[in-house]
Every structure is written in structure tokens, then in C-alpha cells.
């Protein structure tokens, strides 16, 4: 088993075991919201997708959502820079809903497992001869946008540490470990692979 998968499994097992050992408290918050951004090292890309794109530069993540009791719901956007097999530097962006379960839903610390479905693109620009409305521009090379569409089943774990009050507005430190089982439609074939991404960031929200 590769290191990324092992980390996800260990984090998930720790969360479930930890939650089972930690009964719900009467003073647990009923819920909270979060708007968060984070970044991390370049994701690890494996499978057939790795032959098409390789991660370069860091990854990033945007989270908007919150939790109700032990259930979380978020809109997630994850991004990374990738180098393509034809020598270009493109952007990989996946976004979509994510729901989770918090075995540990302490007012100060939450740890949970999460799953989501994300859709997005590997996008960049290429110099190509493109049709245009002008008289003499048909044979003139121009920059054109190129999108490779795809989607991913994202499974992962999230840990959050509150930095402020038990109720009301407060900042949060968080870390996400995600394994995204992705499928992209390139011009010549459908290519699958796994993108493992670690992100650490800060968020702000209201606990209620």
C-alpha cells in the first residue's frame, strides 16, 4: 500500500476509534460554519494519470460549509499545478460537495472522515491556429484555452483545532488529507488515477 493511502486509512481509523471512545458531551456545540483556505505540498499523482500529468508546485484548497452535530457538509475546491506530458504547465482544479462524519466533535477539536464528488478540469493555454472572425487571422497562431474535463471521488480525513471562543466567531486551524480517485477525458482516451493531497490552512466561522 502506498504511503498516501496508508495515511488516509490510519487517520480514518484513528478518528473512528477515537470517536467511539469519546461519548458525546452535553455542552458540545450544535454546529458551526467555516470558510477556509489552505495550501500544501504538491499532490502525489499515481496510476495512468501520472503518465499524462505530474504535480508541480504546491496544492491549495478552499472550503465553505460547516457542521451540524456530527455531520459536516462543505463545498470544496482543490487545486494544483501540473506539468503535462507535452511540456506545458497547466492547472488542475476540482470542486464539488463533500459530506463527512465527526467521531470527535469536541468544541475545541474535531476529527472526522469525509467523502465527496468533485468535478473539474486540467486547463491551460496552447498556441494554435484557431478560427476567428477577422479576414486575415485564420492562419495566425493564437493562444487558445484547452480544458480536459474530469471528476473524482474524494475520500479523506479532516482535523480542526479551534483558536477562539466556544461559541461565536472564531478562527480555526485545520488539516485535510485527501485521496481523489480521478477520471479525466483526454482527447484520445479516458485516463484514471489517484491524487493524494495534504493541505493545511486556516479558517474562520461561527460556532453555535
Amino acid at each position, binding site marked *: 500500500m502506498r504511503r498516501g493511502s496508508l495515511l488516509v486509512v490510519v487517520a480514518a481509523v484513528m478518528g473512528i476509534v477515537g470517536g467511539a471512545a469519546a461519548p458525546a458531551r452535553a455542552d458540545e456545540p*450544535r*454546529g458551526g460554519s467555516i470558510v477556509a483556505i489552505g495550501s500544501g505540498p504538491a499532490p502525489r499523482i499515481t496510476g495512468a494519470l501520472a503518465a499524462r500529468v505530474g504535480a508541480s508546485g504546491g496544492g491549495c484548497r478552499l472550503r*465553505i*460549509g460547516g*457542521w*451540524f*452535530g456530527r*455531520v459536516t*457538509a*462543505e*463545498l470544496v475546491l482543490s487545486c494544483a499545478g501540473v506539468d503535462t506530458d507535452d511540456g506545458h504547465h497547466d492547472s488542475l482544479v476540482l470542486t*464539488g*460537495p463533500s*459530506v463527512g462524519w465527526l467521531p470527535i466533535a469536541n468544541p475545541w477539536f474535531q476529527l472526522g472522515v469525509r467523502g465527496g*464528488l468533485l*468535478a473539474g478540469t486540467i486547463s491551460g493555454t496552447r498556441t494554435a491556429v484557431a478560427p476567428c472572425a477577422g479576414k486575415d487571422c485564420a492562419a495566425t497562431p493564437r493562444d487558445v484555452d484547452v*480544458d480536459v*474535463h*474530469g*471528476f473524482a471521488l474524494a475520500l479523506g480525513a479532516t482535523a480542526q483545532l479551534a483558536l477562539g471562543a466556544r461559541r461565536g466567531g472564531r478562527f480555526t486551524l485545520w488539516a485535510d488529507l485527501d485521496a481523489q480517485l480521478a*477520471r*479525466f*477525458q483526454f482527447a484520445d*482516451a*479516458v485516463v*484514471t488515477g489517484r491524487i493524494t493531497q495534504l493541505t493545511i490552512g486556516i479558517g474562520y466561522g461561527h460556532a453555535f
Partner: protein
Amino acid sequence: MATRSDLRRARRASLVALIAALIAALVAARPAAACPDGGLELAIMTSRFTVAPVAGDRLGLDLWSRGISAAWGCGELRHQLVTIELEAPDAGDDAGQILRVGGYRAEVPLGAAALAFGLHLVVRWGDVTRFATPTIAVRVAPTPAVRLRAELTAGGAYLLAYDPAPRRLTEDLALDASAAWPAAAATRGEVRLRARRYTLAATARRDLTVTAGLGLALGARAGVRALPGFLGVAARVGDDPALLLVAEFAYGVAGP
């Protein structure tokens, strides 16, 4: 055989009639009866992923997603505003997408049923742009535990379009129908049917999808309706037949 100008005339007449009916309903409706929170529902996002589990030579993702939408009113008339909707029957194909920007729907209760009609203001249908395409829906609750719903969206009917090849009123249609039981439960059984007759990027798509699954209200609480979702399996017949997995997620709240 109907000429192009006949088609245009019929389309405009039907759209004008629909808009007139909409305005008449708005004017005729009495102010909404008082209800505790104005019946406000705010949805941040709703997404439906219909996935073919085994990759073929297509991506195998049929994506439908709606951005922020708000509904309010109770009693005589209920309103809904939708900011944006994206439908990608084959998400790997850039040209085969439908983008609807801005929409309004009015729902009028009729005893145990409700009739809704509205318009999508701007529709980018593949590579052409259309304005004011109509939608009509009916919701019936024969018993408190059962809810039936059907909606017809007519993408081929429009008031104006930058379209070199005008469609007939009976083209680019989508019919959605669903039945839920027990309708008010947090976890309920749902059967859905979706029939489409599209021409997108010069490619015809005729299919019928039947879905069975569980409707869920994962984080719902009294006074706050959040995280409704749906998980199911589906069979699609017609063009591109397949067995499918369906996951729908709606993130929103009801009431202030």
C-alpha cells in the same frame, strides 16, 4: 409543412401567452398568508452526479448543478429565484453543455396539488444562446405520505435566440418525474424518471433514465433543513445505455 416563420410565430405566441399567464398569476394572487418565517428557503448549491462506474471511451459523468437559489412565500403563491444552472449530459464534452443563467418560477397551490411555471432567462444551449425558455411543473400529494412531482423543461421554446437553426417547440425537451414515500421522513424512498430529447452540438440525445434510491436529510434539524441528499442506482436506455450510480447533494437552509 410548417415553415420557419410559422415556427417562429408559434413559438413567440406561446411564450407571450406563458409570460402573460405568469403576470396574471402574480397580479391576481392575494398576498401570501402569514407564516412564521415567510417560508424562506435558501439553497447554496445543489449538485447531481450520475456516474457510469466503468470507464469506456467517454468520461461517463452526467452532471447537473444549481448555484444559489432562494424560495419564499406561503399560502397563495410561492416564488423561486435561481441564479445559475449547469447541465452537462456528457461532462467530458465542452460543446455539449447547457448553462442557464437567471430563472424565476411561481408556484400556485391548487388543493392537494400545486402548479408551477417559470422561465430561464438566458440559456446557453451548446454553442447557441437563447432567451426566456419556459418550464412548467406540477406537484401532487394524494396522501400526506406520498408526493408526486413532474416537471417539463422546454429548451426548444424561446422568445429570442442567436441560433442559426431554430428548433421546433417539441425539441430539446426534458421531462422529470419523481415519487417519494414517506414524503416528510428524513430518510425516504424515491423513484425518479428523466426523459430527454436533446440536440447538443449537432449530436442528438434521446434517453430515458429510471432511478431508485434513498432520499436523505443527513443533518436536518427542526427549523433548519440542511444537507438533503439522494443516493441511488439508475438504468438509462436509449442513446448511450448504461447502469449508473446517482449521488445528489443539496446544501442549504430553510428559515432565518
